[in-house]
């Protein structure tokens, strides 16, 4: 992403998909992790852990270090409450930051990213240029983190570069 100065790749992050078992609530998962687990499409972070709500009873979990053991530790912490699958090599991840970041995402996603509708902590699983993505807002800069299935990385980067050139 050398051509776009407000987007950078994030490499050293561990990712895992968490899917609650039948009848298990966000509060149950939160109890096991000592973490305020969002039951809506939102992003929460703390103590080196991040959770993004991706659907009812499903989350994308993040650890800010690349650690092969982390998904297993998360699985052990959740026991019979949820299934955990390592996605660290399944997604490519990006950090988008600054006013152009919102403008660029808004040109791709058909959801309202105005600060009145989408704020720090908001998250969305949606589609940009026919490519499935999930992104969430970190702060009011605004900065966003975005994940895409790794095999779609080149196509999405091409879209980033094309749209960024027009901003």
């Amino acid at each position, binding site marked *: 992403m050398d051509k776009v100065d407000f987007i950078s790749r994030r490499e050293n992050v561990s990712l895992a998909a968490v899917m609650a078992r039948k009848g298990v609530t966000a509060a149950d998962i939160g109890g096991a992790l000592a973490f305020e687990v969002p039951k809506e499409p939102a992003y929460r972070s703390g103590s080196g852990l991040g959770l993004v709500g991706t659907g*009812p009873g*499903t989350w994308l979990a993040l650890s800010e270090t690349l650690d092969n053991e982390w998904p297993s530790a998360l699985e052990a912490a959740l026991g019979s409450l949820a299934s955990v699958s390592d996605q660290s090599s399944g997604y490519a991840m990006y950090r988008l930051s600054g006013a152009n970041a919102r403008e660029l995402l808004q040109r791709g996603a058909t959801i309202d990213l105005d600060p009145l509708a989408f704020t720090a902590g908001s998250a969305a699983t*949606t589609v940009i240029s026919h490519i499935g993505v999930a992104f969430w807002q970190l702060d009011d800069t605004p900065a966003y983190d975005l994940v895409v299935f790794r095999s779609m990385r080149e196509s999405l980067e091409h879209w980033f570069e094309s749209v960024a050139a027009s901003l």
Partner: protein
Amino acid sequence: MRIPCPYCGDRDSQEFVYRGDASPVRPADPAEETEFFDYVYLRENPAGPIDELWYHAQGCRNWITLTRDTRDHAISAARLTSEGKSA
């Protein structure tokens, strides 16, 4: 058209896969072939409100049951199909 996903919020209909009428119920085994024919193929085509299934493939990956009026596309209810069929 915007579809009000109960989890994701209002989304473009292109994010969804349309599955049609939500009312047919699979016949209990054992059932006559004619019953299965009706279940698989026969559909009402009402001018008015209809419960129908939409799959949010490009979002939360959940089935949604919408109540939509076929005359003006007004959507009066949306719920996760996993939470039961009726509003």
